């Protein structure tokens, strides 16, 4: 059944038992919404030098957007920034593939649980759900880096 390709067990697991949910201390906070379905996320990023030391978040949304935030947290927290960007880029590419990208070993290694979202990429209306938290993270990180840069320059 096609449903299973979207709602893989991994995704349902993350949805039911999200990683790192809740707002904690951070260097920058953003609030993103998906106007078409009312999904919302508040997300904070904490950097420790080059390391993403925390991504905390809260909000409401569908299973896909909730699970993807959980996967983001699991996958990116603890990584160095340049590695984190690579993961981000790979996830973006996967989500924009309209189901045409068959995850290979290299991708599985890089994206881990996030490859489970390959099935979601076939549903244009849901891709935005999967990307909500990832776009929020990108935005928050840019703010955090900007503030860090400003602090330095002061």
């Amino acid at each position, binding site marked *: 059944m096609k449903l299973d390709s979207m709602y893989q067990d991994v995704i349902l697991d993350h949805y039911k038992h999200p990683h790192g949910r809740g707002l904690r201390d951070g260097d920058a906070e953003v609030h993103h919404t998906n106007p078409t379905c009312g999904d919302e996320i508040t997300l904070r990023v904490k950097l420790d030098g080059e390391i993403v030391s925390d991504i905390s978040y809260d909000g*409401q949304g569908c299973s896909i957007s909730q699970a993807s935030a959980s996967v983001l947290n699991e996958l990116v927290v603890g990584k160095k920034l340049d590695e984190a960007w690579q993961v981000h880029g790979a996830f973006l590419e996967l989500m924009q593939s309209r189901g045409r990208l068959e995850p290979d070993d290299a991708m599985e290694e890089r994206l881990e649980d996030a490859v489970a979202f390959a099935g979601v990429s076939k549903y244009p209306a849901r891709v935005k759900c999967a990307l909500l938290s990832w776009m929020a993270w990108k935005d928050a990180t840019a703010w955090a880096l900007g503030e860090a840069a400003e602090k330095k320059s002061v």
Partner: protein
Amino acid sequence: MTHLPGLLDTEAIRKDFPILDRVVHDGEKLVYLDNAATSQKPRQVLDALNAYYERHNANVHRGVHVLAEEATALYEGARDKVAAFINAPSRDEVIFTKNASESLNLVANMLGWAEEPYRVDAETEIVITEMEHHSNIVPWQLLSQRTGAKLKWFGLTDDGRLDLSNIDEVITERTKIVSFTLVSNILGTHNPVETIVRRAQEVGALVLLDASQAAPHMVLDVQALQADFVAFTGHKMCGPTGIGVLWGRQELLEDLPPFLGGGEMIETVSMHSSTYAPAPYKFEAGTPPIAQAVGLGAAVDYLSAIGMDRIAAHEQAITAYALERLATVPGLRVIGPPTAEDRGAAISFALGDIHPHDVGQVLDERGIAVRVGHHCARPVCLRYGIPATTRASFYLYSTPGEVDVLVEGLEYVRNFFG
């Protein structure tokens, strides 16, 4: 099969709608419950479109050749049909637009550019309600920003009805226009037109009714409603996309300024100045949606042949049955009036804390098409503190069997995310 009193012969009716035979996702029969978003089209309407394009297509008005005469007769004939359908005192009060949104914007723009006593400006007030479709909110926000007029609105009660307790404070001597929906596309609520019209008339305000969710489903009599303008859209009432209607009282249409300028809406043009044709042409700039008007005419014929009162009774029966069956689904909460009284055939609900997106996706996999989201009525979601709803909406071809499939589907959804 469930038998309810008042049902139409859906077996016969469904044969008119080719799409209802469609099978989706390799083998699931389509159960189309997204009628508040748009309706399906009967064969009769498609035939009218094809006949128009294959035999009569020409630009209307001004032509002396036979195709132009035929196209004009078909286009103007559609106007006659729509006028009769809504019991308009005159065919010249029926303006064809591209959709209900354009009809609503047209009125907002006319009032912004009007002379006294109609002119909306910084001294005046506009009244809408919290249950409006975005297409009946944003035009007024724009008008209010551009003229300085104050935008006010009626709030909602907990069970999804208009809170009119402060009607005398909301509609005042400063009010120029009251614009509200006859039937809500998200809550299903059928609003008490008479109370509002009476108060508006007291203070001399104009009334615009958004009948987008009413025209497809019940007898619409613009004279009985006593509004000044009534807007609706073709694609929700078995007609094509690309066509809407604005009905307006003749004296108003004569007095109010045009909206779009161009061919068809003029009387005489020189480089220095122009004069405008009488209504409805004054408001129909450019080549109109000719084929779409003809298609809407065929839709109106189709609906009238069945009878709008019988369609309303059918939907009432289906809605009552659906409300009753949905009440049996654990965790399901209807957003809107919980009974079929004063209510249309759109039912919004929350299913526990399963997000509507997930509900809709899983239902879709079983062939059940519902709509999820804020349904272009986000203020309603804000009012009830929910991000979105799942909405099932019925039409003349909907059956109790489809309600049963929906209810089974919702059980499946609960288990899936349980």
